[in-house]
Every structure is written in structure tokens, then in C-alpha cells.
């Protein structure tokens, strides 16, 4: 039953979403590819789409994967699944926020989770990076060199605090032009 499966998978993802955004890429990627709902390449494409549209990455990803695998009902199930855990947790905690703010257990857990979030982002960078830079069938090393060049230039721009959407548009333009010139 695809809809229940979507709901449950994204419920799990929602339950363990700490630090938001890129930190959840390894979890989302392993769940989504294990179910055969999308390839890593499509996930990377969608990170760019999500970055250019409103809403958090995990929720956008749920809507997108739900829609492409289970239609509109799939999108509803996956989105509900990813939102529900934080909805429940916030409801439970809201009344007692002050109590939990200085709770030793919560603070201790956060001490461990903050470095884990950084480790997850590093893992996302490496695993996705291998996928992007890996020589592709037929076009081989050319795509690798081109990807690294775009990555280097865009990293320079990103560190200069250029807008992420601008970086995405620019890398898309470079990819399109280079693609035609090199006939990839």
C-alpha cells in the first residue's frame, strides 16, 4: 500500500528531523532510494528546486516524492507524515516549554545532536559529491571536470554570501551553455 508506506516513511523522517534542511539529506536519501522512489540524482535536483521555493526542505521533499510516486493522495499522505511528529511534539511541549528549556536531559541530548547535525551535512556533501563528480557513462571525464569547475566557482560565490537562488540559476545557465558547446 503505497500511501501508508509514504506516510510511515516520512513520519520517521519527520520524527528525526533535527537542525532542518541539509542535515536530513542522508536519512531522506537512504529511505527514498531504498524504496526506489527516486534516484540520488533526482534528489540533488530537487534540493535546488526546494532551495528556490518557500517551505522547509523535508516538507517539500515529502510533497514531491509523494506526488511523483502516489499522485495527489500520495503527496497528502507523505506531507502529513513528515509534519505530524513535530506537530505532536510541539503540542506536548508548548505548555511546558520553560520546564524543558533547562532540562538536563534535553540539554545533554542537544550537546550530542548539534555535532551530529554537522556530521550529517558533511556526509551529505561527500555522498552527493561522489554522485555528481563520478564520470558518467558515455561522456566520462569531461562531466567530472566540468562539475568540479562549476562547484569551485559557485563555492567562491556562496562564500561571498551570494543568494542561493542566484547560484542555482547561474550554475543552471553554465550547465546549459557548456552542455551544448561540449555536446554532452
Amino acid at each position, binding site marked *: 500500500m503505497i500511501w501508508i508506506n509514504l506516510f510511515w516513511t516520512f513520519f520517521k523522517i519527520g520524527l528525526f528531523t533535527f537542525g532542518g534542511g541539509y542535515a536530513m539529506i542522508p536519512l531522506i536519501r537512504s529511505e527514498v532510494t531504498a524504496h526506489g522512489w527516486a534516484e540520488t540524482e533526482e534528489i540533488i535536483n530537487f534540493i*535546488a528546486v526546494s532551495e528556490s*521555493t518557500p517551505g522547509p526542505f523535508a516538507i517539500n521533499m515529502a510533497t514531491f516524492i509523494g506526488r511523483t510516486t502516489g499522485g495527489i493522495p500520495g503527496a497528502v499522505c507523505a506531507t502529513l507524515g513528515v509534519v505530524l511528529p513535530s506537530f505532536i511534539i510541539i503540542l506536548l511541549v508548548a505548555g511546558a516549554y520553560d520546564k524543558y528549556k533547562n532540562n538536563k536531559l534535553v540539554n*545533554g541530548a542537544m550537546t550530542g545532536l548539534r555535532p551530529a547535525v554537522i556530521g550529517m551535512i558533511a556526509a551529505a*556533501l561527500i555522498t552527493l559529491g561522489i554522485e555528481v563528480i563520478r564520470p558518467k557513462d558515455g561522456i566520462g571525464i569531461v562531466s567530472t571536470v566540468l562539475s568540479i569547475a562549476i562547484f569551485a566557482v*559557485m563555492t567562491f560565490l556562496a562564500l561571498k554570501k551570494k543568494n542561493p537562488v542566484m547560484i542555482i540559476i547561474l550554475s543552471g545557465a553554465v*550547465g546549459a551553455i557548456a552542455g551544448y558547446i561540449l555536446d554532452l
Partner: protein
Amino acid sequence: MGALCATTGVVLPSFIIITMISYFIEAFKEIRVVRYAFFGIRAGVLSLILKALISMFMQSTKNVLAYILMFVSAAAVIFFDVNAIIVIVVCALAGITYAEIRGRGNDMD
């Protein structure tokens, strides 16, 4: 009831936008220029992730435990394909244990 409505209100706009975009992506993804553009975009996405990684690292508390947890959690996912849920739970427990030990140490002072 208010919480339900508010949450729906926050989620609905992006839900509608992403649903619409998903149809466009499916329709256009095989077109040559779109394929080339996404080829470039994938490399650009890496730089956005790297930037996020650098700025989060700059803001993080830097002590031995933090470095160990960063390294171990990244290595576990990259090299051993450990489920991210397990990594998160283990790191949370490590943090709690660390706080507990440190707390006891302070009590003895």
C-alpha cells in the same frame, strides 16, 4: 483546533507550489536544455551544502566531544552506510551521558 488550522495554513502554500512544480519537472526533465541545466545545478547544490557546512561548523561549540561526534557520525554514514536515525539516537545518548558525567564531577567539587 487553532494549532491544526495554523499548521495547515503554513504548509498549504508550499504544498500547492511543490505539487505544481512536480508536474513541470516530470514534463520537462527529458528536454535537452533542462537536462544540461540540471547537470550544472547539481554541482551548484554541492557548493550550497559546503557553505552551510562551513557556517554551521563556525558557529558550533568546539570541544573534543563535539569533534569526535562530528567525525564519527559523518564516517558512519559515508563509509558504513549506518542509518541516520541510529547515528542521531547514539549522538543524543552520548550527549546525555557526557552531561551526566560532567554534572557528577561538579557535584564532587
